[in-house]
């Protein structure tokens, strides 16, 4: 049983009956089954409100959406993301289950986009997390790419993130230029994610279909792919809290590069948009979210060879939860060493 049971326990059988907007053209009146007792007041969705309830709905409509429903929906979203994260195992994850969970996440995200709450959440999460730390880590990243960089050195304050950085550094060295933005055809433009999803869907090993540019050593590709598998599963559409920074740009290079090589890449690409000004008033929307279960998830993901950073995990690791970060760093150390070793080979030769 998942730990997040405690969070969802209160809710959400109500969600079983929720009607979801399947297309923007659908009229809001269909949202509630006939005869069902309305459990919350929702003036913005009255049949009286004419015309289209789609993306044109102004933010005020989102705010009037029942907080109960949106919290329930949010917890379903969280639950789904955690499920995708924990998909990695010694055995290949069940593809059918992963696809169904991913589709559920998409549904929620679509509905939230139409409600306008998606953007609010994106903004609030982006604002809630300080991007400064990430920028520092990026600088460390740049240092590591120097030839003769000491093996095994990782930015101590952010060991989990450090692995990612070291990982990205290879990509920067090998791939070179910044790739052009790639858009996901199936996902909302408000997505922001720093990694991609291969794990639950991509069964073909990346380097099976690797083009013969010989950039990557096999070992490294395998390493990458494992990490990708972990990261991607959770980083699907929902990574709204990633802050825009150079690190993200490096992520994108990393993304695009691997997207060429692995047809199993399944996930999102980062779309740059300017960081919105922080709005503390909206943070109360997420005040109910219990950060402790994100910690557990970080610990769990840290037990694997690579950090499977959920969208919220990353936030946690950047904040002051040191013990959690350390526990995951231990297992990442060996991988980091291996990567550095490979880096040395490439750079040194």
């Amino acid at each position, binding site marked *: 049983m998942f730990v997040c049971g405690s969070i*969802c326990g209160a809710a959400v059988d109500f969600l079983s*009956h929720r009607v979801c907007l399947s297309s923007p053209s659908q009229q809001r009146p269909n949202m509630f089954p006939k005869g069902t007792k309305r459990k919350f007041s929702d003036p913005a969705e009255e049949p009286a409100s004419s015309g289209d309830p789609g993306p044109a709905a102004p933010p005020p409509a989102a705010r009037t959406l029942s907080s109960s429903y949106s919290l329930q929906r949010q917890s379903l979203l969280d639950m789904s993301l955690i499920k995708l994260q924990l998909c990695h195992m010694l055995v290949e994850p069940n593809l059918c*289950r992963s696809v169904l969970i991913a589709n559920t996440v998409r549904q929620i995200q679509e509905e939230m986009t139409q409600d306008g709450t998606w953007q609010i959440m994106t903004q609030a999460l982006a604002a809630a997390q300080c991007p400064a730390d990430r920028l520092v880590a990026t600088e460390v990243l740049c240092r590591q790419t120097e030839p003769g960089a000491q093996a095994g050195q990782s930015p101590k304050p952010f060991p989990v993130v450090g692995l990612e950085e070291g990982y990205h550094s290879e990509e920067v060295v090998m791939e070179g230029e910044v790739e052009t933005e790639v858009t996901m055809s199936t996902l909302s433009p408000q997505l922001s994610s720093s990694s991609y999803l291969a794990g639950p869907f991509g069964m073909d090993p990346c380097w099976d279909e690797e083009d013969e540019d010989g950039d990557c050593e096999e070992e490294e590709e395998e390493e990458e792919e494992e990490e990708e598998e972990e990261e991607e599963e959770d980083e699907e559409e929902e990574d709204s809290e990633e802050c825009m920074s150079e690190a993200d740009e490096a992520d994108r290079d990393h993304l695009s590069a691997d997207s060429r090589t692995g047809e199993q890449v399944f996930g999102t690409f980062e779309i740059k948009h300017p960081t919105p000004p922080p709005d503390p008033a909206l943070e109360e929307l997420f005040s109910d979210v219990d950060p402790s279960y994100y910690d557990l998830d970080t610990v769990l993901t840290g037990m694997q060879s690579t950090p499977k950073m959920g969208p919220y995990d990353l936030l946690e690791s950047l904040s002051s939860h040191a013990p959690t970060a350390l526990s995951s760093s231990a297992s990442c150390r060996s991988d980091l060493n291996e990567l550095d070793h490979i880096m040395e080979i490439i750079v040194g030769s």
Partner: protein
Amino acid sequence: KSEGIKSNKITNNMIFAVTRVCFSADIISTVEFNYSGELLATGDKGGRVVIFQHEQESKNRPHLRGEYNVYSTFQSHEPEFDYLKSLEIEEKINKIRWLPQQNAAHFLLSTNDKTIKLWKISERDKRAEGYNLKDEDGRVRDPFRITSLRVPVLMPMDLMVEASPRRIFANAHTYHINSISVNSDHETYLSADDLRINLWHLEITDRSFNIVDIKPANMEELTEVITAAECHPHQCNVFVYSSSKGTIRLCDMREAALCDRHSKFFEEPEDPSSRSFFSEIISSISDVKFSHSGRYMMTRDYLSVKVWDLNMENRPVETYQVHEYLRSKLCSLYENDCIFDKFECCWNGSDSAIMTGSYNNFFRMFDRNTRRDITLEASRESSKPRATLKPRKVSTGGKRKKDEISVDSLDFNKKILHTAWHPKDNVIAVAATNNLYIFQDKIN
């Protein structure tokens, strides 16, 4: 007649009694009768296959049809490690399918996630004695000591059942195999994984034809997977496959080499008033089975079983609710992953009844003619030898009657995913986690 007795009878007044309860070391993952019903094969999570054989009726107990006893046990699949992906390949047997019997030996196909094997099960009850060049214990005799020749004689011995792998069909599936199905031509069979379906010839192991491929060029666009596939029982060119979106496609292999374009597309339009975030998940089809007649097919989704007429694509002809009381619990079931459980379903020999499993070790039978249904339980407590199964009921309203079970007390760890119905008689096999139950109707 009281309500209790009336509801206990389905299809010719069947009353089911316990014949056999068998405990397995591992979770049973598949159950399948052979074409005659004489043999019953089970596969488990440890890669083992256990075959039961129907014993003839004994004169002592004429009221029973005879019991099923263990006939053969063998290790079909071993755990493997995929070095390319650094992942384990489970040895769990996903499916067993028998081949029609053509000689004294029996053949079956068993598959795990990646490899299909053809096993030959043969009996040996005689052995040759009196070899010239060997002693009875097998030692080679000194040829110079042989002064006369004799003809070896076949002597009876204790029955020995041997299983040997005759063919291994490997390396054809990138994704996890969920179905195998023997074609009516008895020469070919299909195997389906999440994204592809391959057609094999039983004699040829190094090649297979890919007949369905739904893998998108860009895996990011993957939204649908294949969940089950089956060959038509009479038309060797026809097969169906179901998807995670609740659709079934019927394909004709004469139309094209790659059957990505279906001949028929079966989908029931969604009821917009019951739409929820879980609608797609519960519409995902976990099993598809043709009727013996070949005119109908049955699909199992999370909450219901549907019978389709192959000539009507826009909706099923019959829908049976298996456990509709779970509809209000979908979020909890999503949380504990039960919503992803893959239940199977099966027809009886005459296609007049269907059976499928549920939770709390319950399984359900539906009589298509009378529209009656019954819930039975496969548990140790209610399965004393030759005990008659009592019908069970789940109380959905506020008031719980005596002997009823409330939805909240259901044990979701006790799930019956695999059931099988004898092709001719009213004998059923029900797998409940580690236990195999065989029930027969009482001949009175």
